[in-house]
């Protein structure tokens, strides 16, 4: 069966700045695909092109076989978009917002009212339907924001960092709703810079950095790239000797790799606990003051670290 989304050598430039640099990937039907990357990696720009908001500079995107360049209106009927911003009208009620956006998708009459009621139930806000959005908490607004994208039962849902800035309870509710939508057969493209979300939700993950798709695959395929190594992260007080420290640490038995990024020394080793003491000793010997220490087992964060030398949050 043909994929629901096919991205072919997609390039997006703003003047001389290349925000997306020729990325290609696909999403199979019924799949949750996450684009994982730090802020500024190009995830939102990618979704903006995929959802027909921006024209690509080069390349093409096919949604259910239809080009976003040549058939944008057909594409728009097949996709749902949950933008990063809370794109709602504060002075309209939850129901009025859903009715308006449903009308924009061509829903009307009894069908519209029934669908709005269903969505209000799904997002758990049926009892607050007549209250204005401006009286809602951040988490409730996020849920309405998601509800708008579901009104017309799209085959493919784009969710751009839908959990930014909300409480853990609302975040849990959103992650559960994404899994439920997927169980109902909806394909999802989910962008995030939270490694845990990508790990929990995704069938496959694409890792983006500086506009490039630097890795793609299932989680096990990706973590295999960093082997079975743990990552030991030393955050140090600003100093000029970090590279000397990295070179010295590289000589410690059991250390697979030692790299630096700004004020962080990253050490890869099969058992990070075993090398912690000698690494600290070396730091003391070189008069490098350690600010904090953390150990990461192999995960997507470690993959990103391995591929870029930086932590996702940098």
């Amino acid at each position, binding site marked *: 069966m043909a994929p629901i989304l096919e991205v072919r050598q997609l390039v997006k430039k703003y003047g001389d700045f290349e925000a997306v640099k020729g990325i290609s990937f696909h999403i199979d039907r019924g799949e949750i695909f996450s684009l994982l990357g730090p802020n500024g990696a190009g995830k939102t720009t990618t979704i903006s092109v995929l959802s027909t908001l921006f024209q690509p500079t080069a390349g093409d995107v096919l949604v259910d076989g239809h080009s976003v360049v040549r058939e944008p209106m057909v594409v728009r009927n097949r996709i749902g978009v949950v933008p990063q911003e809370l*794109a709602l*009208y504060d002075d309209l009620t939850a129901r009025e917002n859903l009715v308006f956006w449903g*009308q924009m998708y061509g829903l009307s009459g009894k069908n519209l009212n029934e669908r709005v009621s269903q969505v209000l139930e799904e997002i758990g806000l049926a009892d607050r339907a007549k209250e204005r959005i401006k009286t809602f908490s951040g988490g409730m607004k996020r849920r309405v924001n998601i509800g708008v994208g579901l009104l017309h039962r799209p085959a493919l849902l784009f969710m751009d960092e839908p959990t930014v800035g909300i409480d853990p309870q609302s975040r849990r509710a959103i992650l559960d709703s994404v899994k439920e939508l997927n169980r109902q057969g909806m394909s999802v493209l989910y962008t995030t810079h939270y490694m845990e979300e990508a790990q929990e939700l995704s069938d496959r993950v694409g890792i983006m950095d500086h506009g490039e798709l630097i890795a793609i695959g299932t989680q096990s395929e990706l973590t295999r790239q960093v082997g079975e190594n743990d990552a030991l992260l030393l955050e140090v007080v600003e100093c000029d000797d970090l590279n000397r420290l990295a070179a010295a640490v590289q000589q410690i038995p059991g250390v697979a790799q030692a790299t630096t990024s700004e004020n962080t020394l990253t050490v890869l080793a099969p058992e990070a606990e075993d090398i912690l003491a000698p690494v600290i000793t070396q730091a003391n010997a070189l008069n490098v003051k350690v600010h904090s220490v953390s150990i990461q087992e192999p995960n997507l964060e470690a993959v990103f670290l391995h591929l870029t030398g930086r932590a996702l949050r940098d």
Partner: protein
Amino acid sequence: MKKILLIAWKDLRLAFRDRAALVLMLAAPFLLTLGLGLVTGRFSSTSNSGLSSIPLILINQDGGELGNALVDVFQSSDLDTLVDPVVQIDATAARAAVDEDQTAAVVIIPAGFTNSIFSATSTPVVPVEVYSNPARPTSSGVVQAIVEGFLSQVELGRINGTVTISQLLEGGYIQPADAASLGREIGQEPAGVNAPVTLSGRTDENTAPPFDVLAYMAPGMALMFLMFTVTNGGRTILQERVSGTLPRLLVDPVRLSQALAGKALGIYLTGVAQMLILIGGTALLFGIRWGHTNAVLVLVLAAVFGALGWGLLLTALARTQSQVANIGSAMMLVFGILGGSFVDIRSFPAWMQTAARITPNAWALDGFLALGLGGGMADVLPSILALIIMGLALFAITVFVFLRRGAFGHR
């Protein structure tokens, strides 16, 4: 088209749920009109014109029957609450009083005025001079109107007298020597028996209603705050871009042209609703006669269209919401002053009167004044056409600017 209407309806609802905007759209013009009405005495029990005790100086150099009759008119009990006349002799001093804004006008009845009217020969009539104070255009306009009313009665009497005496002479009923004294008798009748000007406030369909100062102030204020509505509406376009609702609209099955047309229609409907509420409210509460209903409605539609053009152009040229808000506020005030919302533009220098024509306020005020004074659709047609042309021209420039700048980051 359905989506355009749905977007417009949504914006209309949002506009009337924005309490801060409602204050400026409705409360502010209403209260300012009320305040100006109080200041001008419009709500006093003895005046229905909003004007009273207009100071003026009478210089009667004529001393004849008609000159005295005109002085009597100004001193009559009919006008004693409206005008406060002072009879003087020195015309130069009286003019100086006007120049120093001590009085609204000087009425100078020159020597020979009565004789020029009653002359059996066709000698030119000696004109009565009204020396007006440009700083008090409304008051001096009232004085001018009283004098013109008197003169029209005199002229009517003169024509009647001339015709009557000619026929009597031709028929041999009177001798030429008696013609002058008879003419004088006939000529006195209109001025002496029928008061040339009354301000009873009672009119019939064939006479213009009395001038109401609020019929000038209310549309002036409504039009000034209409500029707030259209610029604030334009600001919401940029607000929707920033808040993400406009981009969300553009990933729905909605074309950019539909989204913008819907937004523009929403602003337009908001402006029309604002004007109609203000017109209805001031008519009910202040008793303002806005005039011919259909003509008022068409004029409102045209005025909002012209104003919308300015609001959209400002939105197209501005880069941020605060730019639209700040420039919009300035535009509202400048257009209000220049367009005559506070002072009749006819008291402005010629260049300012010309400049005022770029504002929808000036054209629309012309129309509302004409309707308030009893005019009909034909009287406001020039204003309506000018406002429609203004709106179309500004809309064309706006589209050009939007296209050049790449509207709303939809790239």
